[in-house]
């Protein structure tokens, strides 16, 4: 189902474009003159932040689902008519477009839910949930035969899609007074649901990486191996629990915190091994080690290593006391969202778009500089935020304010490093979109 996969890939890249534009405008608003100009337009960080975060999540999901539609193409003798799939796809795809446009318009108009990541009005949540159930119906109809014989990425995707429904509903329990009247209950549920929500899209990304690795290498044994399943099992345990390293300071059961502490540092280590294996698989195919896919997945591997370091720090209780609620957590989230998830989705989309090795090589020459710029800018951004966050945390612990110059330095480094990174992203998106539009639509 290349046509559907292609439509979703285009939508995901357009969504990423919105993420970057919102990010650029937010970065510009830190500067005196430009900031005042943006404020005169009635746009503030209040409007930009929920657009940036909700669309960033949409980009990861849409990119991952695009690869799942590619996977649907591997199935024959379906229990559902292909025309029915196409019609249902049109329904959920249209809802996603309408919801996306509606979310941006309402957020710019000042209608907020006031929540993290799902900062839009709950009416859009309902639309997204309905469309998700339609997509789930297609997924299970297409793939329900012989589920116990499926490769590990199938399990990752299945759990990712179901976990989305659970965490999405759980996240909206705040609408009911039996939850929202009790502040600690509401906050602990918000952390739990968002932690598992992040786990859900991480599973989608890891599944897509494994699927792509299998397709490139044509080696199907790894995705059925004991090692792959055991790593998946430990990874899923992390998905269920590791969010709680953000809740050490909440007055709640010690057991939840201990479970989180014990397993919280494992997930990125697991990812590191998974990606190493994938790169090994890709390297086994002659000529493929110079493709864009290889470079993005290598970047992803590098960032998973760096993110391990920050995750370790955040999970150690005394250090957590200093750095939680500072820019270190922001740096960690940015490293994971851009360094791991975004580069991984870029990697799998580049495989999807540039299956022809010659085209991949030509394109790689065009975007080689952009990949280096993205990585370097991201490194400096994360380093600036980590240094500032740690210093801020120490001052805060000593009940003092940090010197004003520190805040100014951070502000300027955010502006200076986010621009080359954003421009590189926009260039890569343009190249990908250009090739996706040119791609001959196969109606299988």
């Amino acid at each position, binding site marked *: 189902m290349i046509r559907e996969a292609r439509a979703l890939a285009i939508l995901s890249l357009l969504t990423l474009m919105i993420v970057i534009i919102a990010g650029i405008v937010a970065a510009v608003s830190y500067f005196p003159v430009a900031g005042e100009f943006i404020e005169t337009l009635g746009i503030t960080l209040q409007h930009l932040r929920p657009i940036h975060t909700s669309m960033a999540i949409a980009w990861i999901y849409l990119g991952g689902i695009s690869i799942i539609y590619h996977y649907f193409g591997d199935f024959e003798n379906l229990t559902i008519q292909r025309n029915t799939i196409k019609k249902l796809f049109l329904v959920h795809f249209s809802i996603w477009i309408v919801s996306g446009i509606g979310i941006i318009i309402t957020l710019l108009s000042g209608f*907020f839910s006031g929540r993290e990541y799902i900062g839009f009005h709950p009416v859009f949540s309902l639309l997204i949930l309905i469309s998700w159930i339609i997509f789930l119906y297609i997924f299970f109809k297409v793939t329900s035969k012989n589920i116990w014989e499926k490769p590990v990425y199938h399990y990752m995707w299945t759990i990712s899609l179901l976990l989305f429904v659970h965490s999405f509903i759980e996240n909206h329990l705040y609408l009911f007074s039996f939850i929202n009247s009790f502040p600690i209950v509401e906050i*602990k549920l918000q952390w739990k649901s968002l932690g598992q929500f992040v786990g859900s899209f991480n599973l989608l990304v890891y599944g897509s990486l494994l699927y792509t690795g299998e397709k490139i290498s044509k080696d199907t044994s790894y995705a059925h191996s*004991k090692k792959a399943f055991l790593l998946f099992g430990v990874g899923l345990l992390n998905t*269920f629990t590791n969010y709680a390293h*953000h809740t050490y*300071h*909440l007055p709640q059961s010690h057991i939840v915190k201990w479970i989180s502490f014990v397993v919280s540092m494992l997930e990125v280590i697991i990812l590191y091994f998974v990606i190493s294996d994938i790169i090994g698989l890709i390297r086994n195919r002659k000529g493929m080690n110079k493709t864009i896919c290889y470079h993005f997945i290598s970047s992803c591997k590098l960032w998973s290593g760096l993110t391990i370091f920050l995750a370790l720090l955040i999970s150690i209780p005394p250090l957590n006391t200093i750095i939680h*609620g500072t820019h270190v957590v922001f740096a960690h989230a940015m490293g994971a969202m851009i360094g791991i998830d975004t580069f991984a989705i870029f990697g799998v989309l580049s495989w999807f778009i540039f299956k022809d090795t010659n085209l991949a090589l030509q394109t790689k020459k065009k975007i080689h500089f952009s990949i280096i710029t993205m990585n370097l800018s991201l490194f400096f951004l994360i380093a600036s935020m980590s240094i500032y966050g740690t210093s801020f945390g120490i001052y805060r*612990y*000593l009940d003092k304010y940090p010197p004003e110059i520190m805040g100014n330095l951070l502000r300027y480094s955010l502006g200076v490093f986010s621009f080359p990174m954003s421009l590189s992203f926009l260039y890569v998106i343009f190249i990908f979109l250009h090739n996706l539009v040119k791609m001959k639509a196969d109606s299988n």
Partner: protein
Amino acid sequence: MLIVHRKILLSFLVLFFIIQSLLVYLDSNKFQKISFSPSAQLGRTIWLENNCQSCHQIYGFGGFLGPDLTNTAKYYSSEDLIEILETGPLQMPSIKLSKKEAKDLSAFFNEIDKTGVSVPIINNYQTTNHESIEIKDIPWFEY
């Protein structure tokens, strides 16, 4: 991996998920039983409708442009807090609240402050005016 092993693995994971979720849902202590007054509940709605979380945090949840406001009521009297909310403090622009709205938001800050400590400081336990909170009640801060 053999099919039977896959079934065992998935059963274990589903069971773990159920147990972990139940631990969170059923967990209850005196802080979790604290509920908002009607005025604080209205204040919470103002907090959400103005998307205050884009710049500020409650228990570390939110943006990093402004400070964590979980325990801000510790530093200001209710009257000062209402005045600050009406006019807009320091660099923050005024969000143009009415007297009643500022009062409700102030109630929200006062009541959220009583639920725990978000940002620990070196002399936290000497300076805090939370007489009901003892060190042992604040998990993982005991070191």
